[in-house]
């Protein structure tokens, strides 16, 4: 093949409208989830993120049945899930993770049931595995609106959200409304979950909401930098995954998450200060310096 032929081959995906939408939409979803993954990983909300990504499914199903926007259904379902988790936790002696496990699987099951029984334009495979290459224009606009709202809120209030994650007691003692901040963060997570549902499916949303933040935390010890690195990595992996799935003809969601994990693993090994190899080097240097 000549260089021109290779270039033409590599540029081929950009000749299709659905590919351009998939790459751009994927990048937007990746950036949004990456941004929120900073808070999820630091707050220790990984399980809650997983729960929300499953709990939004019945909301999406009901929205589809009645022809309402998915986003509205997802947020209502997300809020309901968090309320239910809190209610059961307050009124039982069960531990938080058990309550989360019971509630989100129940809601996910309800969602699967609703989708299978009530005919709508929603397919079970789309919910489970995502369908980035087949994303409709209307859904793309929803994601864009949700993403813009979320980025706007984080841009304005990231310092309060950070303080809430780091030291909720201090946040409260200086007059911050920690209940509101808690609710805002959960609402943003629900929005991100439904956006990512389209891209990678309910089963893999949680990866989008954790892995970029976890990777960024290996690469920096400053929150401000984390807020740039994580969305960048999330967007890069999603765009590359969508692009590569054109050639590999494989699951787009699977490719995106596999790419994210590959980046995580590279950081895990080679991160300049917090990576495994850096740690080994430090240990070796310390052993040498010791008498």
């Amino acid at each position: 093949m000549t260089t021109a032929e290779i270039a033409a081959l590599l540029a081929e995906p950009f000749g299709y409208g659905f590919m351009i939408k998939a790459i751009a939409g994927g990048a937007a979803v990746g950036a949004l989830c990456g941004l929120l993954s900073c808070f999820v990983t630091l707050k220790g909300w990984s399980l809650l993120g997983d729960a929300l990504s499953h709990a939004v499914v019945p909301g999406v199903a009901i929205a589809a049945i009645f022809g309402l926007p998915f986003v509205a259904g997802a947020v209502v379902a997300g809020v309901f899930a968090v309320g239910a988790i809190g209610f059961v936790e307050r009124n039982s002696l069960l531990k938080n993770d058990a309550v989360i496990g019971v509630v989100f699987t129940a809601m996910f099951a309800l969602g699967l049931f609703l989708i299978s029984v009530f005919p709508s334009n929603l397919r079970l495979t789309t919910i489970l595995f995502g369908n980035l290459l087949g994303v409709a224009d209307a859904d793309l606009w929803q994601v864009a609106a949700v993403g813009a709202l979320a980025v706007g809120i984080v841009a304005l209030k990231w310092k309060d959200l950070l303080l809430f994650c780091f030291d909720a007691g201090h946040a409260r003692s200086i007059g911050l409304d920690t209940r509101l901040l808690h609710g805002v963060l959960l609402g943003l997570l629900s929005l991100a979950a439904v956006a990512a549902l389209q891209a990678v499916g309910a089963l893999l949303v949680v990866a989008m909401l954790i892995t970029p933040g976890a990777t960024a935390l290996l690469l920096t010890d400053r929150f401000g930098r984390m807020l740039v690195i994580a969305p960048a990595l999330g967007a890069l992996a999603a765009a590359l995954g969508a692009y590569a799935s054109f050639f590999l003809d494989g699951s787009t969601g699977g490719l995106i998450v596999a790419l994210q994990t590959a980046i995580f693993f590279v950081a895990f090994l080679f991160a300049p200060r917090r990576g495994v190899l850096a740690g080994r080097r430090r240990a070796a240097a310390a052993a040498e310096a010791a008498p």
Partner: protein
Amino acid sequence: MSSTDPKSGPAPVVRVDDVTVAYRSGTVALEGVSLTLDRPSICGLVGMNGAGKSTLFKTIMGFVEPTRGKVSIGGRPVSAAQKENIVAYVPQAEEVDWTFPVSVADVVMMGRQGRMGFLRMPGGTDRRLVAESLARVGMADFADRQIGELSGGQRKRVFLARALAQQASILLLDEPFTGVDVRTEEAIIAILRDLRAGGAIVLVSTHDLATVPAFCDSVAMVNRRLVAFGPVATTFTEANLSRAFGGTLHRFLPGHGLPAGPDAAAARGLALGAAG
């Protein structure tokens, strides 16, 4: 007086009025506790593990709603004092996530956050107070360190600096002397005395009974109920201590170096049998 001391004169009165706190599990953590801190002073809060020290702190901070009774600050609800940023809490080391990606200066700046505008952009005053507070606790050279890189004593100093930067007039310190070296302990006590001189009310929970007569003006002993509360000279007695600590209070052997206590009996009663 340094400019990191509260500007607004003496601290408002802290009144804990017949407070009972019962948790969902059925545990009654505090029962009918009343105490008033009405003048600039350092008050030691002592009691066994599980005696309700933390619950009392959380109630004064407004984190826990009393089942009965109420807490007021300056005659108003705690939430009003929080809005004014006048109550600062210095947490125990175990309550802090030391892997968090924030620097020493970031943490101290959090003391200013409640006083910043909508976007929480620090201004010149905020930066100056952060620098002054760090200098005052001897941590100016560590401003850019990630907080996990600090020693136990340095960590305590950073959170004290945050309370200084907040310019709070009421400070609650939870076990500030656990895991710190003598030099840090002395530095912290010196700062607490400065704060008192500046009009602050300081409430310190501690396991370390030996330090209580050395720097506290008053002492509150809790064992679910308030066992005793008053000036150290009259309240920090062997009889009260053994009521607060039950049978777990052991005497020091004679000749053990003890700080000069208010009276010999109390000094002999200083014991760390209750430390956990």
